[in-house]
């Protein structure tokens, strides 16, 4: 009974988390919602309209500065770290906390004398032995939040637990690299998410999700195969069928990423037969990487880690699925010669309680290990301080010893090769780096890049008389063009088209009777750089 109540409590907790989300949205202006408003996870659903309208011929294929790719493997629900990376160094206490769930020695393989993994993870042993796997111990953040949703958002935004940051760290990178994303999106999808609801990781400040995301790996594979969003075969009969075909073909034409996805997919193949839900996702990712799509970040998801009950049966199976899929993924990549370019990293919103509950499961916890895989890790091993089963918080959860943002900061600087100071800006504060991860940018052909070099302050300002000003600060004199465009990307009016001196500028957009109220964008071109931002005409 007790545990039943506990689980009910968890459900209520979800409710609370959702209410918090709602409040967060309520506090934000109308404008801020437009982005999240398109949060439905259909492949093209999150992209701003201009992104789906642009012709691939309008811009030459953008050069990617590095061939490196980061794959985030999300273990959804909160992975039980103690039953993944098992503390043999404090084994009796571990078994004491977990009389039924604790893994017996016969169920364990040893990575070292101090650390074991469940035997179902044995498929990873080859990677471990080849020096391609690192484990960061006991990762978390201060003031752990125990709601799935809130904690997942914290991992995405990389903000402090008490701060509500709508954008995701990767969304911020994309927005900085493509300040004119709305009117001139990159030719290559900057990020692809397969599985799970559209993640806030890819949100920009306006909560526009800048990634392509699909729930179902078949969906993206299908599109990649056919180059179509919607199948034109198998349509219904009669005039209804003709109308359906018509709308489908228009929808297909609106999604220009279909072309690059299809090209990458068709020019590559899988060297291994993947199994399981995660395997299917990684199979598609592998083909897109091997087909040189150029997308830098992929996110895949394995659900089921919220093991409040029957963990003994489910959890080892999930880890087996994870292990087999990762092993197959790297084998597949190595056949294409791309394994050195791909770093994979497991993330999860939290770990689980040290002590098992009464229904042979574990409740929401705090710190947990992260696993990294890749041929460039310079040897397998452990990073950070292993969990101390006695150092618990008031709920009985592990106190973290490594902040997840130190891992992110290290990966951003030493894998994706972003400038160090800018990584700090991006994460909002300076986190220490983990050189022990073994990754570096020294062998990369391109040096660290400064994506922030042309940052320019600009915003829409609302005056009390209903007029709107576009405000911007020029660091130096430049040719400036300011246009107002509507939701469909059509220009409404040009406000500025001339050379302007350095300093602050403000241009009025008068609201005339012929211009209807609603959402618009301004498109600010300074020299050869373009910025855009939505605003609301009230």
């Amino acid at each position, binding site marked *: 009974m007790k545990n039943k109540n506990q689980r009910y409590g968890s459900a209520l907790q979800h409710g609370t988390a959702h209410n918090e989300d709602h409040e967060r949205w309520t506090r934000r202006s109308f404008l801020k919602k437009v982005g999240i408003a398109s949060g439905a996870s259909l492949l093209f659903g999150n992209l701003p309209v201009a992104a789906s309208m642009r012709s691939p011929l309008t811009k030459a294929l953008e050069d990617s500065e590095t061939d490196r790719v980061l794959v985030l493997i999300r273990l*959804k629900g909160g992975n039980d770290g103690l039953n993944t990376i098992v503390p043999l160094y404090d084994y009796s206490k571990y078994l004491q906390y977990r009389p039924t769930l604790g893994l017996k020695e016969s169920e364990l393989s040893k990575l070292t004398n101090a650390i074991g993994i469940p035997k179902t993870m044995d498929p990873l042993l080859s990677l471990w032995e080849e020096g391609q796997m690192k484990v960061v111990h006991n990762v978390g953040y201060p003031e752990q939040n125990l709601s799935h949703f809130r904690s997942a958002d914290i991992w995405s935004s990389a903000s402090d637990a008490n701060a509500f940051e709508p954008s995701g760290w990767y969304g911020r990178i994309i927005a900085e690299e493509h300040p004119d994303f709305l009117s001139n999106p990159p030719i290559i999808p900057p990020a692809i998410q397969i599985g799970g609801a559209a993640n806030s990781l890819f949100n920009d400040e306006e909560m526009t999700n800048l990634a392509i995301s699909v729930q179902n790996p078949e969906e993206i594979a299908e599109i990649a195969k056919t180059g179509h969003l919607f199948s034109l075969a198998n349509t219904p009969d009669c005039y209804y069928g003709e109308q359906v075909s018509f709308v489908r073909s228009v929808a297909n034409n609106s999604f220009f990423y279909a072309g690059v996805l299809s090209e990458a997919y068709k020019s590559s193949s899988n060297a291994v037969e993947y199994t399981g839900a995660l395997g299917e996702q990684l199979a598609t990712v592998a083909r897109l990487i091997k087909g040189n799509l150029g997308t830098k970040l992929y996110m895949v998801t394995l659900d089921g880690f919220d093991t409040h009950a029957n963990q003994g049966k489910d959890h080892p199976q999930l880890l087996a699925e994870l292990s087999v899929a990762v092993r197959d993924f790297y084998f597949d990549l190595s056949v294409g010669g791309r394994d050195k370019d791909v770093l994979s990293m497991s993330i999860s919103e939290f770990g689980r309680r040290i002590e098992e509950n009464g229904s042979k499961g574990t409740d929401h916890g705090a710190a947990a290990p992260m696993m990294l895989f890749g041929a460039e890790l310079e040897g397998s091993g452990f990073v950070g301080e292993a969990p101390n089963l006695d150092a618990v918080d008031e709920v009985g959860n592990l106190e973290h010893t490594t902040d997840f943002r130190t891992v992110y900061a290290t990966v951003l600087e030493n894998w994706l090769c972003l400038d160090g100071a800018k990584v700090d800006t991006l994460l909002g504060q300076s986190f220490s780096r983990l050189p022990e991860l073994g990754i570096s940018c020294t062998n990369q052909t391109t040096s660290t890049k400064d994506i922030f070099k042309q940052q320019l302050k600009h915003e829409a300002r609302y005056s009390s008389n209903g007029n709107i000003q576009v405000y911007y600060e020029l660091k130096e004199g430049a040719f400036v063009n300011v246009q107002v465009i509507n939701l469909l990307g059509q220009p409404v009016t040009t406000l500025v088209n001339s050379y302007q001196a350095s300093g602050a500028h403000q241009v009025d957009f008068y609201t005339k009777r012929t211009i209807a109220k609603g959402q618009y964008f301004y498109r600010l071109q300074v020299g050869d750089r373009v910025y855009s931002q939505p605003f609301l005409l009230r």
Partner: protein
Amino acid sequence: MNIELLKIQETSSTPMENNTCQTGSLQTYRPSDTMPWNEQRIKHLYKRIGFGAGPDQIKKALTFNPQNLVSQLIQQAISAPIFQAPEWLALNHLDYKENEDLLNSNINGWMHKWLADMVKHNVRGKLILFWHNHFVAQLETYYFPSYLYNYHRILQTTALGNFRDFVYEMGKSTAMLLFLNGADNTKYEPNENYARELYELFTLGRDNGYTQKDIEETARALTGWNNMPNWGEAIRFSEDTFDKDQKTIFGLKGNWNYDQLHEILFTRKKEEISNFICEKIYKAYVNPEPDKVIIAQLAQTFVDNDWEIAPVLRQLFKSEHFFSEANIGVIIKSPYDLFLNYFNEVDYKITEGEEIGAIHYFTGMLGQELGLPVDVAGWQGNRTWIDTARLTGRWRILSWKVYDTMEKSPNNFTELALKLTGENTNDPAIVTQKVIDYFLPVALHTPELYERATAIFKTDIPQNYFDNGEWNLNWDSVPWQMTSLIQYIIRIPEYQLM
């Protein structure tokens, strides 16, 4: 009964290749095992005759006899209240001379009132939109409040009235006289513009039973409507500019004037007019692919009822033909269809003022705004509504509106989910299927599509809460789950159809 049905279809002059595409006759629809009176047909009726219905209305309609329901809807449209004359009606150009803001606000206010009325009395509202798109007069050309009032009043009072009176009144309205140059058409300098459109667009159809000579002579019969002492005053007839000489129209000689011309037109060209108008009604309300046999039968009804519009609508909406499966889901929603159906579907009450203004903006951006039909021929509808920019525009705008609905009234979505499933459930697949089938005109044809949507509906809730049956429609997450699902549904191509 089936034999009877086949017999009727055999008489059709346009035999269909595929039996499943066959549509019934104009005989009264009687629910049967093969054509049951179900939610799908009820939605079909509501979406076509008006702008859709909510779950309660649909449920209630199940208990009605379809014939009675159609009669009732049309009767409600006929007896819907007519706007009272606004206080500003008497204001003249001098009153507005120094006050352009007042002019703008009176016009904007009336356009908003028009749209709000279209939402509230949506069967008549849809017909007014239809006739507005038939008797096109662009607001820009007659931009004066009293002209707008008079133009709209004719639409509102005659939408279900007599078509002959409609044409007669429209031709004398200042808005039309300005838009199609009737005001410039004098015995000294005849202007053919209105005469041509009267035949080509309003009554006969292009090159259908008239000659260039007929147009020239008709223009002369229409002269005299030139007396406008001041901008803002109604244009009146003046003997001075009227051409009193003899004209030959459709082979008839006489000193025809405005009244006589209309008399001639509606007695000599019954077949052309009735077929042309009934085809237009048919394409707008039933199927963009016209069925000439059905249209001819409707045309006969039109003539038999001396140009009364309501009997044609009654016959059409009560018919087996209208309710035939092959006519369901074949119309591409106009921007107004898109938004107003959405609001009705989710039981969202539009507040007058800001939200009405927002609809103007949304539909305008997508190519349809009251007062501004694209040209004299009106919006062409069907596939012209959609191209890549406007399809993605539909997704984007409606996505925002779905989110906005959740934020303004989160309970709407929870209640909708409960109503559609009939009771609380802990199976997300059931909810997803009911919601999809509710929003789309025809069920999706593969189970995979429902599975994908179910995954969307689960949003970010860990799978175990579905597996152990703990999740249900009372969860606080449901409004957000419904938001995600509906945002997904509106992007399914079939959602653009009704």
